[in-house]
């Protein structure tokens, strides 16, 4: 400890070394980062044009006034909430193997929250007036507007995760044992908070009495169930990449547990979906209109039919594959199952949930929607940016956990400025 400089200085060193490590890798890494940057640039440009020319660049209308952006937002919130399925076993059940890799779930949550925030920002007609939403300076319609609740819970979740991850990595970097007082309360808070982000996001939609397709008490539970499928599935993919691409030791235990969690959540998700559909189709009436359009088309219009049946097939196939014994092993089956449910839920919660809320319109006009090229570009850009920061953060986390990045090595890296 005698060589440890001032805390501020060592933190600066931590940041500088993080930046160094995050931009260091083999040719696969550089290619991956280059491609992601390129896609992010295309998205940024499409967004800039959209801001200049107006939302006319999208295919949204006064009939379908939310589209791909809000669809993607909803999925990303779920992804962020799904990370909690590593935190619960690691901290509530003291699963030590899970504890070693729980940071992957927390990093995914950070990247996913950034993606959901960006998805909302690109959906604003006047992003220049962003400051109107800042409490104190702007006019924050809290607690009346559900959107203000969402702003609070999403930003809160981002801060909690940034704190926990940042603190643990920094302590490890210093070679010190983390003080439980500084992170354990936040970990427990994050568990409640993870549930809240997806619940509040569901309340955004189900609180609207004028939209019968969303106006169901089952929406929040369904959101959570599907989040606990898509989140862990995404983590399984990330863990595989980390295991193959780095020296971080990853035991098979955590993945097995995640597959078990997915099995339960996927079954509950399908059960609730079935329950919802039964109520709609058996009772019929005006509530049925959106579901009818979604699954079978209406008034000679079938825009969402291919989407939703793809989602149904992908979710069913993914769920069945997860129940096979092969999914417990590190196998191709598990990989395919993960991809199936991720894409399936992305459609189910996005194009399959947000769009039919607007079709037919509140006065029963059927005006269809499919995303414009601008919307695809911007959404791809958001994903690329999210994966970019996820990769960079994972690089740093792996470097810290494999002791590639340590305070003592700082002297070797920057000999000119630091003297013991």
């Amino acid at each position, binding site marked *: 400890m005698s060589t440890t400089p001032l805390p501020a200085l060592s933190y600066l060193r931590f940041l500088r070394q993080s930046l160094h490590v995050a931009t260091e890798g083999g040719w696969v890494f550089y290619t991956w980062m280059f491609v992601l940057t390129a896609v992010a640039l295309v998205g940024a440009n499409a967004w800039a044009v959209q801001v200049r020319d107006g939302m006319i660049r999208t295919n949204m209308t006064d009939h379908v006034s*939310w589209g791909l952006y809000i669809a993607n937002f909803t999925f990303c919130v779920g992804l962020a909430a799904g990370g909690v399925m590593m935190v619960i076993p690691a901290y509530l059940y003291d699963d030590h193997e899970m504890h070693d890799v729980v940071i992957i779930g927390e990093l995914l949550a950070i990247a996913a929250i950034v993606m959901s925030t960006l998805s909302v920002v690109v959906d604003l007609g006047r992003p220049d007036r962003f400051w109107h939403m800042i409490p104190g300076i702007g006019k924050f*319609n809290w607690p009346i*507007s559900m*959107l203000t609740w969402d702003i609070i819970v999403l930003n809160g979740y981002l801060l909690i995760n940034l704190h926990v991850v940042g603190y643990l990595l920094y302590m490890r970097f210093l070679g010190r044992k983390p003080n439980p007082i500084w992170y354990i309360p936040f970990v427990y808070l994050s568990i409640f908070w993870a549930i809240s982000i997806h619940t509040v996001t569901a309340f955004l939609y189900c609180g*609207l009495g004028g939209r019968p397709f969303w106006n169901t008490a089952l929406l929040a539970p369904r959101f959570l169930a599907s989040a606990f499928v898509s989140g862990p599935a995404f983590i399984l993919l990330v863990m595989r990449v980390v295991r193959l691409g780095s020296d971080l030791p990853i035991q098979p235990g955590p993945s097995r547990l995640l597959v078990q969690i997915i099995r339960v959540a996927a079954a509950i998700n399908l059960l609730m979906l079935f329950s919802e559909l039964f109520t709609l189709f058996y009772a019929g009436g005006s509530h049925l209109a959106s579901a009818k359009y979604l699954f079978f088309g209406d008034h000679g219009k079938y825009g969402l039919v291919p989407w939703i049946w793809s989602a149904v097939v992908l979710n069913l196939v993914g769920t069945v594959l997860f129940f096979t014994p092969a999914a417990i092993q590190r196998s191709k089956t598990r990989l395919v199952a993960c991809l199936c449910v991720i894409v399936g839920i992305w459609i189910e919660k996005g194009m399959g949930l947000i769009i039919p809320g607007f079709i037919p319109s509140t006065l029963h006009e059927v005006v269809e929607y499919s995303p414009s090229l601008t919307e695809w570009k911007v959404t791809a850009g958001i994903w690329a940016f999210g994966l970019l920061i996820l990769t960079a953060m994972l690089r740093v986390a792996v470097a810290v956990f494999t002791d590639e990045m340590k305070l003592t090595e700082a002297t070797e890296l920057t000999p000119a400025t630091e003297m013991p």
Partner: protein
Amino acid sequence: MSEKKPFSLPVVGEVDRRTTLKAGAATLGLAAWAAALKPMVEWASSLDRDEFFQKHYRELTREQLQVILHKLTFEARKETGKPVTVKDHKPIPGVVFAYALNLSICIGCRKCAEACHVENNHDRPSNQSYIRVFEMQKGGIDFEKGNTTYDRPVPGKDKYYMPVQCQQCENPPCVSACPIEATWQESDGIVVVDYNWCIGCRYCEAACPYHARRFNWTKPEVPPDEVNPNQSYLSNRIRPQGVMEKCTFCLHRTREGRMPACLEACPTGARVFGNILDPDSEIRWVLENKRVFVLKEELGTKPRFYYFFDK
């Protein structure tokens, strides 16, 4: 930061080569980001500094509001060459407006929608209007059998017509939805939007059960000679791009004691408008003597827009 290290290209040392490459990549990256976001810079230069810092309408002092109205008037005159005045019409104490529409005599001619289009300086290319007229099948009030795109002589056989505009709900879901109080209900019951405060998230549009709200997907285009010069801050002044708008019961007319443009345009006299607090008003007579109904009563929005049949 390691990128900022001095480097001399011809004699790059072993240790510094990577750093140099990274610095180069970072520079190129930043340049690429600047190029990608260039359209945004073009747009930002068209923005107005005072408007950016402008406070919410209800927090403006009388003087601040006067300055803003002057500026809006000046700009509108410069752009259109017409004697435009942008005023601020305050609600009249003791007045609560309500509207009633006689479905027995409405013939579905859409003159009201057209009058709204002209009066409220709506975007011309999209033929925007706050009123949608539904051609309905006799035998029920079923919007599923309704049609807004009918194109033939009216009234059609076995049809009746239902114009729908903002219902000026007493309990408006759009107002609760707004995260930044850019839309609110005034004391005369009219729900308004501060176009200079709205961020364009369109949550209110999703919340409205009557499809009454409209978004400015682009900058509204109105040929200068067609601009209605009698404008108001909260109603028919030409809206900015990217914000919400809605029917205001023509508050720039009705708060001056005149009738809404849609009522004046109606050739059959199907529309009745007035102050429900005035016991001698025509609207009170209709509400007291006709069997009126409101749309989607079960939602609890309490519309101030009533429909009735004569026979």
